[in-house]
């Protein structure tokens, strides 16, 4: 790959990956760099502001949002976010929340226009550089994997195929379908603690279907949905492996070495 392909990418890592799953963040960096990007991490970023937005606390949400928009606006290049939900929030709700003041409104639009969700960006990177995402599968697939197309990536950003193709490119994985693949997993942010029984009911529908389909590996691009589903699987003592797509890609590569 020639260095002329190199592009500076700002990583907005999301609060959950930062605090709970730092390895996913490292895998994101590894994949972006492997495809030729130069990754920077704006150190003053915090959280996009969505939790307070969904809870109806828009004063708090807007303040948090504006801080992060300012941090990102001081940088240049594409902003990559390894979460469809946070990306959807900054792209679609950010400009609306920031519209109170003409200057911040323009800034919000400017930042939003630079944002790309991780699977969508990597897919484009690979296409652009003609990276052989799909290495020859020299061994038969060993594990049945399902790609959970989280709601905000799916319905907010129109992404699903991107993550699925990335998963298809991972050696040793057979991607399977489940019934109601596009139905919500029941997480919904604070919904999961405000209405825990309903959230659990929806989750159990999803987990039943994963079990029925004999899924051994659950892959997604939104760490929040994955926490919820893995938390539920642990209670069922189901050993299904739950991984972020970035980790599935990098782990798949290590397997081959």
């Amino acid at each position, binding site marked *: 790959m020639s260095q002329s392909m190199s592009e500076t990418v700002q990583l907005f890592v999301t609060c959950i990956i930062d605090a709970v799953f730092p390895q996913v963040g490292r895998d994101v960096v590894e994949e972006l760099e492997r495809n030729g990007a130069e990754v920077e991490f704006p150190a003053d970023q915090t959280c996009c502001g969505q939790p307070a937005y969904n809870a109806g606390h828009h004063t708090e949400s807007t303040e948090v949002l*504006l801080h992060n928009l300012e941090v990102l606006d001081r940088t240049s290049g594409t902003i990559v976010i390894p979460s469809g939900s946070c990306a959807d929030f900054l792209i679609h709700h950010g400009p609306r929340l920031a519209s109170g003041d003409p200057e911040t409104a323009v800034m919000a639009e400017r930042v939003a226009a630079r944002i790309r969700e991780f699977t969508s960006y990597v897919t484009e990177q690979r296409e652009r550089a003609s990276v052989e995402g799909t290495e020859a599968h020299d061994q038969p697939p060993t594990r049945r994997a399902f790609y959970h197309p989280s709601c905000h990536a799916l319905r907010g950003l129109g992404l699903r195929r991107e993550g699925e193709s990335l998963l298809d490119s991972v050696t040793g994985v057979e991607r399977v379908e489940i019934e109601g693949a596009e139905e919500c997993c029941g*997480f919904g942010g604070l919904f999961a*603690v405000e209405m825990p029984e309903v959230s659990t009911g929806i989750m159990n529908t999803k987990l039943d279907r994963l079990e029925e389909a004999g899924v051994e590996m659950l892959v997604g691009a939104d760490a929040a949905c994955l926490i919820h589903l893995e938390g539920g699987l*642990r209670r069922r003592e189901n050993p299904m492996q739950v991984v972020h797509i970035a980790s599935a890609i990098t782990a798949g590569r290590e397997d081959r070495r």
Partner: protein
Amino acid sequence: MSQPVTFRRRAVSEMGTPKPAAVGRAARRFMGKRQWAVDDFTPMEETRDRARMIRLHTLANLHRYLDQFADSVERNGGQVLWAADAAEANLLIAEVVGRKEGSLVIKSKSMVTEELDLNAHLQGEGHTVVETDLGEFIVQLAEDHPSHIIAPVMHLTRQDIGELFHKRLGIPYTDDPEQLNAVARRHLRRFFLSADVGISGVNTGIAETGSIVTVTNEGNGWLTTAAPRTHIAVMGMERLVPTFEDAATIVEVLARSATGQRLSVYTNVVSGPRRPGDPDGPDEFLVVIVDNGRSRVLSTDASEILACIRCGACLNVCPVFREVGGHAYGQVYSGPVGSVLAPGLAEFTEAADLPFASSLCGACREVCPVRIDIPKLLVHQRVRATRENDPFRWLGPGLALYGQAAKRPRVWKSLLAAGRMVGRLKGRDEWFHRLPFHAKGWTQSRDFPAPARESFRQWWKENRSGT
């Protein structure tokens, strides 16, 4: 908890019954049919756009179209009655029905009369009210409430209905839908022939022609509006379109979205009382236009919900509705549309927790025939709830702390550091099995991950930052 979270409590109690299983099955079946009907119709997307434009245009000019509609109805020989609220509507309707003592009233399906609790009111005045829509007939027999806008007994299985007919109509038990249908038809026929008044809802009123359109799959709607001497149509004040052609557009997306049909079996257009030479029809035609909170909704930032054409697709596709069924909402309108509309129509505080009964997954927005951004409106209603009657007041301090910390990188970093301490103290097992206070809602059914011992930003600082 300082406030009873009533949706949650009702949902838990409903989830303990067999109802949600029936609802989940039926709702998924409806969605399958809808998908067929959408794929079947090439210009579906353009038609949805047109339907949306028609509805938004009507709402933006509602008073003009209401005036035009009233003039047209009167020109056709009908009469228009205006009701500001449920009490007034009941009074107006009872006055007409009460011209004869002990009237027999037959009804075809109408959600707005559910808002009014009209049946109870008329029965209280000594009249007999018979629901003739099969679903509503079952609801009435069971002394229940409809659980879905278009499928009132979605929460019942045919075995439940068989039991009910056996007990209340004294027939031998059967759960064969054909037989049950025949029993209901036989039972209802005599009422059609002898009723004094027919009361119907209105799917769409047409301002230009003064007509009302009802859409049904049973002949009952047509009989109710044509057989009795008096026909009273009860209409929510927002249910108008400007022209006949507009009504056709609405009916097109309505049938496909609601029941997955190209067209409902009966699309009935009533334009006034019987005219000389007409083979049938009522001598008297009245339209009761009901506000009952709609003007209030129209003045809020959730007003777009009034563009709804009541197809029920957002209920059918909603993961929450499928899990709990319509009764958990405790309001006439359930599901996503109800969660926006109900707190607007009622005193807001009565249903302030309904907007939170959603994971904001966006499936409703995707299927809405008039493309209402329901998740956005749910969030609008949440904002209002936090200001007027926050059902999750306990979240306030936490969100305030979050708000303060997440706009100050230094404070945020020390919060993260505190989190890492917890992670280290947690030791080898990286998941919590029990969390305290309100977070225990999470650990009822799910483990929760402990913060990592080294955050991403720490790793970056130590390994990657250029300094």
